[in-house]
């Protein structure tokens, strides 16, 4: 079957940069919130920047949560959540105290201010990854590669074994996970120069 990557459009953040990155790699991508198209896509990207509660409100009012649930949990097509998209895959967020899509057992929490840490929040800029396990998404990615981060909240997994990346900012936090067909990245591969391109290439190969 011909690959068609759906980039889920729910009015949050910058979707064109994801599309562009996928197109450069020679794949077809469509920015959409049309249920009939979401049904046909072979892979999905859930991008997003912004407020968690507003994002859930938008997904709800578009009426696309049931189809997304089906694609994630029944059809089990590969889905990549980026930044806020990663967070939305979890059970709950402190940002607005609302439930997420609950595909992944985890909570989204604000960066904690701990004693002796005076790191600025948001975590904004380039940082490296510790690579855990053997996710196909991380093929050819090394701990030297820098990725672009911009976030004030991060994911706390119930089962840390599904973490594929950790990053240190104030303290180590989960910056990537994989549970079967579901992938989440806290950083922006679409904004991370060549290293980000490798991640999309890996995603397209899944």
């Amino acid at each position: 079957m011909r690959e068609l990557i759906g980039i889920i459009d729910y009015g949050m953040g910058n979707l064109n940069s994801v599309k562009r990155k996928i197109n450069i790699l020679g794949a077809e991508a469509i920015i959409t919130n049309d249920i009939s198209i979401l049904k046909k896509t072979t892979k999905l990207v859930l991008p997003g920047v912004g407020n968690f509660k507003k994002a859930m409100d938008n997904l709800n009012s578009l009426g696309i949560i049931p189809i997304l649930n089906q694609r994630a949990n029944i059809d089990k097509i590969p889905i990549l959540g980026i930044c806020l998209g990663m967070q939305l895959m979890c059970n709950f967020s402190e940002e607005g105290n609302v439930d997420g899509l609950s595909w992944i057992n985890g909570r989204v929490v604000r960066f904690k201010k701990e004693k002796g840490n005076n790191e600025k929040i948001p975590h904004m800029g380039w940082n490296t990854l510790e690579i855990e396990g053997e996710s196909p998404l991380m093929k050819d990615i090394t701990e030297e590669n820098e990725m672009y981060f911009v976030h004030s909240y991060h994911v706390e997994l119930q089962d840390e074994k599904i973490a594929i990346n950790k990053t240190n900012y104030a303290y180590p936090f989960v910056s990537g996970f994989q549970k079967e067909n579901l992938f989440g990245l806290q950083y922006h591969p679409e904004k991370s120069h060549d290293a980000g391109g490798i991640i999309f290439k890996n995603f397209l190969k899944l």
Partner: protein
Amino acid sequence: MFRPRIIPVLLLQNNALVKSIKFKNHQYIGDPLNAVKIFNDLKADELVFLDIDASREKRCISPDFVKKLAEETNMPFSVGGGITNCNQIQQLIAAGAEKVILGEIASKNPDFIEEAVGNFGSSTIAVCMDVKNNFFGKQKMYYQNGQKSLDISPIDFAHLMEQKGAGEIILQSIEQDGTMEGYNLELVQLISQSVSVPVVALGGAGDISDLNEVYYKGGASAMGAGSLFIYQSKMRGVLINYPTKEEIKSNFTK
């Protein structure tokens, strides 16, 4: 390991790239899309685009133009100039900007920051503060390209912006702008020590040691510069440039 961002700040006038000295004497540099292509090749961390006439002309930086920039830009970028409402922010983000920079509106209606943050999240909303000494040697906030001043002190304004939820403060020294004689270190120290959000230092960078100094001594989270990345040297011959990976590594590993 976390590393501070080094950000070329590009000024736009009629969609052309220009560079000022102390907010005056704007020199034509070239086509911003060409500059973007070069910054892609040089793997710049992030870019800032400011439409410097927009606010005075009571219009917003053009989303169509931002879309053109986004089609060429491989790295995150923020845009500013004349933004006054959430609808415009929505359009600029949809056009491909990562963040928006609010200037005059932040000065005149600080509550708008709260509204914007509620809609787009704090990491999408940056505030630009333009600071210089007034006739009595007192540091004041300015807007509309340095033409109009505000009554609030820079430190109180920075606190207010943090309280309203701004995700980043771009702190620009008007007196240092384009001089290439170094940042206003004291100003950067003062503001970055007093807020918990990232502060981007801007104005005065002349070489990489200035970037190093404002990060380690000034406490800046990121370093912005115009002339440094646009001119070959202090002789101001146009040559788009950016530090190499090695230069960055040797200057900014904690």
